[in-house]
């Protein structure tokens, strides 16, 4: 992959808590290329949101500490000054948040919120920004956008609000869009529409996308590559087909097996992953997944596995080989 849009290197995020430092993201590294979609999956609390918020310096920095580098077009986002990062935010890197219901300001019109980045980053006049806002609403498929720019968020349905968030994300034609569980709150029909929308924009604008989710079905539909995160550490990374076909890491496997598949008779008892995710203030010395891993051996709980590359474009952090799995 030549010249990635974003290259994250050894990103580590910790929070100072009363119970000690919680390491929430550990040495996380990945690249995203032009027009590529990278999916980050992992269960709740695995550090997906935190790792992306850290990129835009959106974490509250007294409790949070961010280390590592994130080169965006060659410039390190992590070490940028306040005003530099403001120039990037919403402009070249945009973010769509997990919850569209609360991520829009309830007392500002949709138009106001859409126009803000346009005016700040593109220096547009009010009228120009407004025209562009209407255009953007149209792009994301809001019917009769001219009549709705002056509406307030509560007058929009959940699906429409999510589209507004997307419109806001793409308004300044960013190079990179980070979508954090952008569709989790929506029902399947609306979700399907939004996924189509994103794919279309990506084709049209060459946008790089980081898509954060725990829904593997969505991943299957949208991603080019997948990163699996567990307990703040990367477990596996590969192109989409490989993950589903060759799932090397026991965690990835467990994740995929726990999903009920539609169609067919009530076939099997679901394979749930037993146990709980690790406490980020007391991370086990070895592999974070070891306590819950069906295949774990002695070594797993003492020795943190390093990332290996069993195949081109496929990295995995596990001491074991799929051949050793006994199921």
């Amino acid at each position, binding site marked *: 992959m030549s010249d990635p849009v974003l290259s994250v290197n050894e990103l580590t995020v910790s929070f100072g808590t009363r119970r000690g430092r919680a390491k929430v993201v550990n040495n996380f590294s990945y690249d995203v290329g032009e027009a590529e979609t990278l999916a980050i999956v992992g269960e709740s609390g695995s550090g997906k949101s935190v790792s992306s*918020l850290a990129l*835009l310096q*959106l974490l509250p920095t007294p409790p949070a500490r961010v280390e590592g580098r994130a080169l965006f077009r060659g410039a390190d986002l992590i070490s940028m000054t306040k005003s530099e990062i*403001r*120039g*990037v*935010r*919403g*402009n070249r890197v*945009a*973010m769509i*948040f*997990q*919850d569209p219901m*609360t*991520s*829009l*300001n*309830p*007392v*500002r*019109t949709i138009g*106001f*919120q859409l126009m*803000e*980045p346009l005016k*700040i*980053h593109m220096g547009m006049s009010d009228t120009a920004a407004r025209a562009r806002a209407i255009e953007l609403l149209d792009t994301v498929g809001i019917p009769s956008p001219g009549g709705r720019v002056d509406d*307030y968020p*509560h*007058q929009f349905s959940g699906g429409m609000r999510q589209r507004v*968030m997307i419109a*806001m994300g793409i308004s300044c034609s960013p190079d990179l869009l980070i979508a954090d569980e952008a569709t989790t709150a929506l029902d399947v029909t609306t979700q399907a529409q939004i996924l189509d929308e994103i794919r279309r924009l990506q084709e049209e604008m060459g946008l790089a996308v980081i898509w954060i989710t725990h829904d593997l079905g969505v991943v299957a539909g949208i991603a080019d590559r997948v990163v699996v995160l567990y307990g703040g550490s990367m477990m596996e990374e590969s192109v989409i087909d490989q993950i589903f076909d060759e799932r090397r890491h026991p965690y990835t496997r467990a994740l995929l097996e726990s999903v009920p598949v539609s169609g067919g008779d009530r076939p099997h008892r679901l394979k749930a992953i037993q146990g709980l995710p690790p406490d980020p203030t007391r991370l086990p010395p070895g592999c974070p997944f070891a306590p819950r891993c069906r295949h774990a051996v002695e070594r797993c709980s003492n020795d943190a596995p390093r990332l290996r590359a069993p195949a081109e474009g496929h990295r995995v952090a596990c001491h074991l080989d799929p051949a050793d799995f006994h199921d």
Partner: protein
Amino acid sequence: MTAYVLRRLFQMALALLGVSIIVFSLIHLVPGDPVRVALGTRFDPDVHAALTKRAGLDRPILVQYFSWLGDAVRGDLGVSFRSGQPVADLLFERLPATITLAVAALFVALLVSVPLGILSAVRSGSKLDYGATAASQVAVSVPDFWAGIMYILLFSLSLRWLPPSGYVSFSDDPVEWLKHLTLPALTIGLISGSILFRFIRSAVLEALHQPYTRTARAKGLTERQVIWSHVMPNAWIPIVTVVGLQLGFLLSGVIVVEVIFAWPGLGRLALLSVQDRDFTVLQGAVLLIAFVFLSVNLIVDLLYGYLDPRVRQK
């Protein structure tokens, strides 16, 4: 909307009726006889009887109440027993002073509490935050009369910056008006500001932790823009309620300050009328204060609709 306002006005009329009943009950409940007070030491049973009869105070209380109510509905609030002047005249010549003071005090309160509240919330846990919080606690524990005298001794007597008391109407001399207004407004404004401070701080803190604030930051807004165009518009909503209540508190809480600063307002008039058992005036003054208070509440509720589009709809 119109229907809503009408409905509220009707409810307001009911509340005023309730207020009038309570105040009227004072006549029978409070010891002290207006005629006796008016006569002072010149007690003479014949004159007492004559004056009581003339004022209609010898009639049964219900008769008195309904005749008062009948007149009041027609806009006649009666005549002051104490001064022999129409109550409405007395009230309206004093209303501007009270409103001026209440509004100025609110202005001071907002001037202090809004920036401090916001700053404390934005830098919560900082020295500034602790300092402001402690100061607000001290300010509410210091009684208004005490603070008032202190300001007078400091700013008038020692520094000679401001006149110690009195009222000059704005139309007579704007500069003097402001000079006379400053100390009394400061006295209650700071107390009320301390209360507001606490509410503003928590409202801002609340809004700061909402996801839309993060969205605003993610758009590349400066911190200032985030606060003013996203945090505050939300924070105002709860603040407005408290401000409305504070204005009510100011309207009825100015009595002591009006006395200290020889401020010719309704509060002082109400106090005098209690002392002299001048019930028609008391009745009128309390009704007027209640009316302003309830109107402010109504305005606050309407303002809510303006500030919060979720309430505004339809």
